[in-house]
């Protein structure tokens, strides 16, 4: 209604995807900025951002099972690995050193990676029906070690530790996106590809979590007894949460190394799972935009710490000094998780909400 943007006159307005004017404006502005980015910043930063967008897809997946459905999973690295190897094997060179089927079309291997990982999630899901909380976390942790072992030994697929294999081939309609074209450089194209994919998967996830499925996830998280008594099939929804989450992990995994072009089995250790947990916790559990913020933050963190030696001279930029950037980075992960859990449990999303609420009532905020 004119002049009263927050007066809803239909349920369609009330349940709309972006239901307030500021949300529409800000989302539009962000889209424009993100699309103009390739023309404003250097290629190496674009590659970092592209990796961040892929990580965001994975973090959204973890947030669905952990943030929305409340099932703590430390096994995200395992599902990322399944996606990475499915994508790489499907699109790999059939005559190459490692397994490859030569299906280079991006939509095909992307979807296949998601589906294979989703299926793996569905197989693991019955554990979540029996276990909860810490016990589930420990069991999913076991998946990571299991996966590490399999991928280390299965050298015809993975190339073996220290050697690795080429990542999936990003070919869309016959065009290799990682190679420079007439208009764009390779990193620019990859940046735009990852951004478009992130927008698609974020919109899909946001739709899911505001649907009856997403509400059922939240019900299982908040009160599982009450959820069952109002008609939510606990086993079914826990399994669905795991399947969707691992689908997202599979998609993200298959894209994760496209930017670098190469990966080895050592990439899928416990640290990777912890990084994704950190993205979800720092970004804000149970929000899609929080997962994106957290993923970008964690991905850009090494870049920020690398700038530290210029400001703080006692930190050395290489591995030789008493305090190195790599040590600072490792400590920062832990420190950030601790600080956020204590000071701002709702993460970056919570900070954003506070800033927003401050300015909404400005200058009468108190």
């Amino acid at each position: 209604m004119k002049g009263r943007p927050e007066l809803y006159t239909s349920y369609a307005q009330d349940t709309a995807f972006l239901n307030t004017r500021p949300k529409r404006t800000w989302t539009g502005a962000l889209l424009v900025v993100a699309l103009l980015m390739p023309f404003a910043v250097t290629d190496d930063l674009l590659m970092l951002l592209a990796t961040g967008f892929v990580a965001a897809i994975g973090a959204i997946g973890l947030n669905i099972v952990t943030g929305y459905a409340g099932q703590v999973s430390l096994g995200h690295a395992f599902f990322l690995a399944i996606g990475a190897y499915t994508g790489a094997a499907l699109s790999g060179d059939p005559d190459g050193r490692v397994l490859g089927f030569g299906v280079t079309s991006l939509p095909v291997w992307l979807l296949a990676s998601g589906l294979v990982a989703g299926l793996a999630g569905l197989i693991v899901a019955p554990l979540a029906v029996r276990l909860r909380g810490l016990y589930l976390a420990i069991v999913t942790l076991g998946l990571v070690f299991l996966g590490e072992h399999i991928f280390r030994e299965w050298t015809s697929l993975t190339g073996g530790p220290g050697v690795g294999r080429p990542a999936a081939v990003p070919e869309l309609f016959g065009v290799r996106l990682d190679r420079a074209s007439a208009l764009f450089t390779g990193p620019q194209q990859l940046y735009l590809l990852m951004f478009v994919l992130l927008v698609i998967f974020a919109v899909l996830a946001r739709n899911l979590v505001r649907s009856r499925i997403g509400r059922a996830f939240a019900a299982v998280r908040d009160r599982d007894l009450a959820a069952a008594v109002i008609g939510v099939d606990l086993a079914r929804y826990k399994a669905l949460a795991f399947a969707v989450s691992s689908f997202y992990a599979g998609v993200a995994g298959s894209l994760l190394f496209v930017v670098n072009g190469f990966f080895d089995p050592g990439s899928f250790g416990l640290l990777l799972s912890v990084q994704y947990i950190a993205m979800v916790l720092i970004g804000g559990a149970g929000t899609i935009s929080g997962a994106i913020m957290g993923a970008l933050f964690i991905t850009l963190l090494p870049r920020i710490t690398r700038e530290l030696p210029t400001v703080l001279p006692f930190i050395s930029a290489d591995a030789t000094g008493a305090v190195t950037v790599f040590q600072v980075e490792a400590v920062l992960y832990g420190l950030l998780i601790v600080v956020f859990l204590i000071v701002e449990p709702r993460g970056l999303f919570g900070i954003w909400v506070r800033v927003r609420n401050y300015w909404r009532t400005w200058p009468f905020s108190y």
Partner: protein
Amino acid sequence: MSLPGPGNPDPGNPDPGNNVLEVEDVTLAFDGVTAVDGVSFHVAAGELFAIIGPNGAGKTSIFNVLSGVYRPQSGSVRFLGQDVLGKRPHKIAAMGVARTFQNIELFAHLTVVENLMLGRHNHMRYGALAAFAWVGRARREELANRAAVEEVVDFLELEQWRRLPVGLLPYGVQKRVELGRALAMEPKVLLLDEPVAGMNVEETEDMARFVLDVRDELGIAMVMVEHDMGLVMDLADRVMVLDFGKPIRTGTPAEVQQDPDVVRAYLGEQHQTVGGSA
């Protein structure tokens, strides 16, 4: 439809064809403690049936049997002629049994509307793929059920709290939202576990009014467990008194109040009467 034969232990069941809920000789024991011991009762359509008794009498255990959380060792529970025992809670909910809890079991992080929408979970049938796209059936069902939820918001006068997370609401309002979530299910029988526990006089009166409205306007049969005797005697059509899991009297509020066994159970002489005869 129902079969209370000659040996029917449920007394005073004049019209078995009219029953929504029939509980027969249910016994539930946990490792030697018999929480529910041979309980039988029936609830007619549109009736408000109350279960009272001292602490630990097995009232909430009966609710947990009815909603499928516990499985009793013996007895039968029939809801609209269908056997309920052995079904999982979400199946029983889908049949049309709704309940509220003694200690509020709301989804604290979700808003009032979202909690009520969860009550309508089984009224929507679209699957995960439709949910991703949010078009067609998913969108239609969401909008239709959002409108249906608004009826409940209106009925329970929850307008001002619609968008707030329920965890932030006052206790009395949370109890009301929980009733709303059960009503949103459009149940055929509603189990109320201490609907006014911990409420002040004003909140109790509000809740009493809503309970009466549910019976008179919506015509939903109710089973209510409650310690507030004034409320039970004012509202209930019939009352069953439990003591140590055993039913000691079922009848109208007036009959029950004058029963010597009931008076004994409540005035603390049960060690000589019930305990002595066991």
